[in-house]
């Protein structure tokens, strides 16, 4: 279980999140929706400690941190190891081939030997349909291919939670579909996914759970059915803006 409790964050005098709390359950796909600037990315980044709230706490499985004071590297890394982020801009290492991008992280984490990691890389790259591009450099791949390699890289370190921050919004629809297919596949396998997206259809069809952010806090937390049937004026307004896009 992943739990963020009473987290707040301001950038200057822009109070982005105020006392927000949420729980992510294992084995299901949680989708975070909300208008642009509502703090979705910020909230997701808290889970991987790429951003730090000013107050509150985060606990993932057996590890927990309380925000506000100074955290040691060891504390940060012990919480961070439970999740891995897939970024909107892929962020593959351009100086490494596809197979190195995917096989090096578990080796550096001390989880697998080089030979095991190589095998695992082949396995996860096959999963995302990139198993035949091992020796390519990322620059020579399309955006959709890069994103699928990025998913494989996240899978390679075997995180408890896979975090996605608008993984397809930089992609043409056709390429986005390839990436979405991989995500649907992972979801149906019972992986724990947390997905920030503007793709309402994904929320409708794949999510077990929808969290809606508005005005600095969690405005809705429930099933997609409940969400799309909601008569909340805020949600209606959101759906009429993003639902047709």
């Amino acid at each position, binding site marked *: 279980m992943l739990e963020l409790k009473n987290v707040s964050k301001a950038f200057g005098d822009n109070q982005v999140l105020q006392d927000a709390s949420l729980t992510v359950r294992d084995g299901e796909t949680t989708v975070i929706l909300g208008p642009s600037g509502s703090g979705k990315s910020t909230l997701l980044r808290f889970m*991987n*400690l*790429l951003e730090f709230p000013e107050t509150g706490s985060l606990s993932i499985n057996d590890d927990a941190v309380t925000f506000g004071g100074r955290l040691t*590297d060891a504390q940060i*890394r012990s919480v*961070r*190891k439970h*999740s*891995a*982020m897939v*970024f909107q*801009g892929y*962020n*593959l*290492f*351009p*100086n*490494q*081939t596809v197979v190195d991008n995917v096989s*090096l*992280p578990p080796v*550096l*984490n001390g989880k697998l030997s080089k030979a095991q990691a190589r095998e695992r890389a082949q396995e996860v790259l096959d999963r995302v349909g990139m198993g035949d591009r091992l020796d390519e*450099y*990322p*620059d*020579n791949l399309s955006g959709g291919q890069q994103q699928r390699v990025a998913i494989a*890289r*996240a899978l390679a*370190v075997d995180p408890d939670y896979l975090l996605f921050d608008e993984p397809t919004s930089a992609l043409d629809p056709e390429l986005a579909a390839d990436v979405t297919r991989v995500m649907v596949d992972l979801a149906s396998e019972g992986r724990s996914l947390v997905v920030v997206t503007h793709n309402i259809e994904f929320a409708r069809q794949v999510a077990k759970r929808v969290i809606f952010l508005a005005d600095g806090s969690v405005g809705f937390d429930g099933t997609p059915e409940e969400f799309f049937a909601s008569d909340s004026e805020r949600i209606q307004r959101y759906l009429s803006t993003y639902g047709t896009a």
Partner: protein
Amino acid sequence: MTELFSLWAESLPQLLLATLTVTIPLSALAFVLALIVAVIATAMRMGRVKPLQWLSRFYVWLFRGTPILVQLFIIFYGLPAIGITLSAWVSAIIAFTLNTGAYAAETLRASVQSIPRGQIEAAKTLNYTGWQTLRHVIAPQALRIALPPLGNDLIDLVKGTSLVMVITLADVFQVGRQIAATTFQPLALYMEVALIYLIIFTVLSWIQGRAEKVSNRYVRSTNA
């Protein structure tokens, strides 16, 4: 014409000797040391300890902000006044190391800072340690970016060593000057000296080109 050729042929061994015993070893040694200094200065500058950041900035400011000629004079002629007497060789090594080190430190800092934030975040999400991030993500990418300007720093250094005659070292230029003075053939001699610099430059440019090609292997077409 034959007179000119025989002048060149006669002076060449002396000029080459000065090149091989002063110009090249001084440049090579100072450049290697400068790279070490630059890495240390960059680490200090990018680290978290404020006084070390200031020290690094001060160093770069001081050595980029003053002419190398003045630095040579201070070290060789100035320091004895406070009891520090260094040989011409040691003075030259120190001056060129610190001078080139300051430029190279700027180059390295700019290269590291030009690496997109997303690269560091990717390393974080994969739970890399600081050292692993430096070793596998930052250093290889920064080096690729730094290679062309560092090559230029080296070329500037080689040409800059022609100033060491002012502190009594007999480099290729100084030897050329002496021969020019005794043979009354300045044009011929200085052209010969220039040619030697051009040959060194050409070799270095070629090496630079090769190194860039290797380090750019993962960059898509445009300038690979």
